[in-house]
């Protein structure tokens, strides 16, 4: 046996920075950091120099200046004498509005189309394939402008509703007007006493929650299964309706009426909103349809068969076995579709919908010439929105992860 001598203790040598795994990673990171900082510093320095040369150093003071332009759709109080900051806020809210509406309808459309695409009705399945492929393979911007054009060209103008020989008529008992300037729908006006009705409504919702809990407990105890859906539906409507009549109909609808150039009263959903909403929903819906289809297909046929063999029936198999499994597959890509929809809503600019890109990144940018600040703020807003949505997604993913060995 040869004796093993201790190897000499190492002293630090420069080459260890490169060859010693312990220092090597440190070296690389420090170099990366330095390079990164240098690049950032270079960019910032250039920007500062350039902006200074143009005489407009980075400053967000313009947000406090008078905007001077009007915005047609505003969810909060706004007029042309308010500030650019306020205008940006109006735009941001408009973005969130169309994103929210879009996500809801895209989900509905997508789920329908996805399920119908799996339908055993050949024609329906084919129509849905055409819809899905058609929308997925044509740019969304084209859809937005095209649908905008459809809405404004095919629907009648308000003037067509006028006079005795009107060529267009309002729908549903003269309460809804579909015009090429948008849709006018009745608006609820809350009069005195309406609080009670609203309260009843809220209570019914609470009631539904409790009823469901009770029904579940009862089922667990006695095994009896109640028609929870129908009863919930009844609780949802009946007490409120009852209260509504008891209180002497305190909520009245303000109907849109033709006055002057336009309809007045009611809620006006502008055609830019409608076109954008529709285009985004249909476009994203096509993607969601694919997600839904593959999600349902991901649940193997054996699961349905096993449930059937146990004696479960169609809708219950869907609710208890297929959907819970499909959801895990469907939800994550669906949320990233929501993300895409939100980002695509920035194309509102093509149809004059005054979202964040239209106000902050559009007119404000043009009027003030503050490109740097406006674009930065715009990016920041979208970034925060996206991160918030992905946070929800990550949370969901973690929550439903299948347990495996």
């Amino acid at each position, binding site marked *: 046996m040869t004796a093993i001598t201790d190897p000499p203790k190492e002293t630090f040598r420069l080459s260890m920075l490169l060859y010693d795994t312990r220092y090597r990673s440190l070296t690389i990171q420090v170099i990366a950091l330095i390079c990164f900082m240098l690049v950032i510093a270079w960019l910032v320095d250039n920007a500062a120099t350039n902006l200074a040369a143009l005489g407009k150093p980075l400053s967000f003071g313009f947000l406090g200046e008078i905007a001077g332009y009007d915005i047609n759709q505003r969810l909060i109080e706004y007029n042309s004498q308010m500030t650019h900051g306020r205008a940006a806020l109006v735009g941001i809210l408009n973005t969130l509005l169309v994103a929210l509406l879009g996500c809801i309808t895209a989900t509905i459309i997508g789920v329908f189309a996805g399920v119908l695409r799996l339908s055993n009705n050949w024609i329906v399945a084919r129509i849905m394939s055409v819809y899905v492929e058609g929308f997925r393979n044509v740019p969304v911007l084209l859809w937005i402008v095209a649908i905008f054009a459809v809405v*404004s060209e095919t629907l009648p103008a308000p003037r067509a509703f006028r006079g005795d020989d009107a060529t267009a008529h309002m729908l549903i008992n003269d309460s809804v007007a579909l015009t090429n*300037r948008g849709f006018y729908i009745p608006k609820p006006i809350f009069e005195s006493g309406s609080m009670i009705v609203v309260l009843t409504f809220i209570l019914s919702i609470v009631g539904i929650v409790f009823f469901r809990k009770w029904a579940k407990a009862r089922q667990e105890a006695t095994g009896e299964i109640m028609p929870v859906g129908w009863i919930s539906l009844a609780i949802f409507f009946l007490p409120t309706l009852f209260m509504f009549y008891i209180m002497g109909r305190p909520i009245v609808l303000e109907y849109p009426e033709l006055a002057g150039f336009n309809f007045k009263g009611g809620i006006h959903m502008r055609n830019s909103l409608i076109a954008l909403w529709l285009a985004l929903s249909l476009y994203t819906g096509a993607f969601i349809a694919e997600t839904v289809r593959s999600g349902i297909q991901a649940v193997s046929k054996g699961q349905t068969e096993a449930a059937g063999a146990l004696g479960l029936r169609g809708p219950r198999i869907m609710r208890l076995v297929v959907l819970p499994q499909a959801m895990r597959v469907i939800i994550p890509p669906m949320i990233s579709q929501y993300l895409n929809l939100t980002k695509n809503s920035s194309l509102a600019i093509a149809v004059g919908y005054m979202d964040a890109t239209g106000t902050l990144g*559009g*007119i404000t940018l043009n009027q003030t010439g503050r490109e740097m600040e406006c674009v930065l703020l715009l990016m920041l807003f979208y970034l925060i929105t996206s991160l918030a949505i992905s946070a929800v997604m990550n949370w969901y993913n973690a929550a439903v992860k299948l347990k495996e060995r």
Partner: protein
Amino acid sequence: TTLEDVQAAGVLKCGVTTGLVGFAAPDANGNWEGFDVAVCRAVAAAVLGDGNAVEFVPTTGKTRFTALASGEVDLLARNTTWTFSRDVDLKFTFVGINYYDGQGFLVRKDLGVSSAKELDGATVCIQTGTTTELNLADFFRANGISYEPVPIETNAEAQQQYLSNACDVYTTDASGLAATRATFEDADAHMLLPEIISKEPLGPLVRHGDEQWSDIARWTLNALISAEELGVTSANLSEMAKGTNNPEINRLMGTEGNLGEMLGLEADWAQKAIGVAGNYGEIFEANIGESTPIGLARGLNAQWTQGGLIYSPPFR
């Protein structure tokens, strides 16, 4: 300097709109045509001797100033309103005015409106990215009436919205309105309201800081205007170039004096500029004048001698 850069490149980079009837649009062969385009070509001819040595850069309302400031274009001829802040704050030099415009309103005749003040509650299509929104807001505010603004990015879209009756009124510069109206199938069913709610002097502009370059642009434009005033047309240009007994024409043609040299150009620079498409009046007539489908009358844009505002400082 810009002049040297342009001469070295052999081509003038000129910013225009992405498409506005009569002012700038590409034809089927990709040749740009229009009133603004003619200014670009004239400057190119003056500087490079060739009216086709222009690279047209389509710009939007948002990108136009950046394009000019960053040197992406050497000259911006994109019906841009000369305002204080653009001149002073954004640091551009407007070299003159090639079209006196003002914001107007286009409506259908059967709307039964004869004045903009009767537009209470109307839906108004606006082309964004210009001074239009501000003027509009001010006008309606000042008159205490309400309106519903519909902002649209491009003229083509706005026109479509107006025609399909999605808005009652279309507002933009009156020249644009007239041009748009002219292309309607039933142009007679539409009219411009009498109110012009703003001054919109449109002109080409260059960057601050290169006086030689701004002088070239300014005096090329002036040469076109003077040519009309002095009766120099594309038809009689070669004749005039031989020399006349009007010393101002001679100076313009470069047969007398050394104006070209002072600009750093050749003596016949103005001749070449005028040679591209004729004088100001000819350009006007060819692109937007009454003989074209656009059919704009000279109006304010007539020579000062004809009661208009078009006026060139003397060449001397």
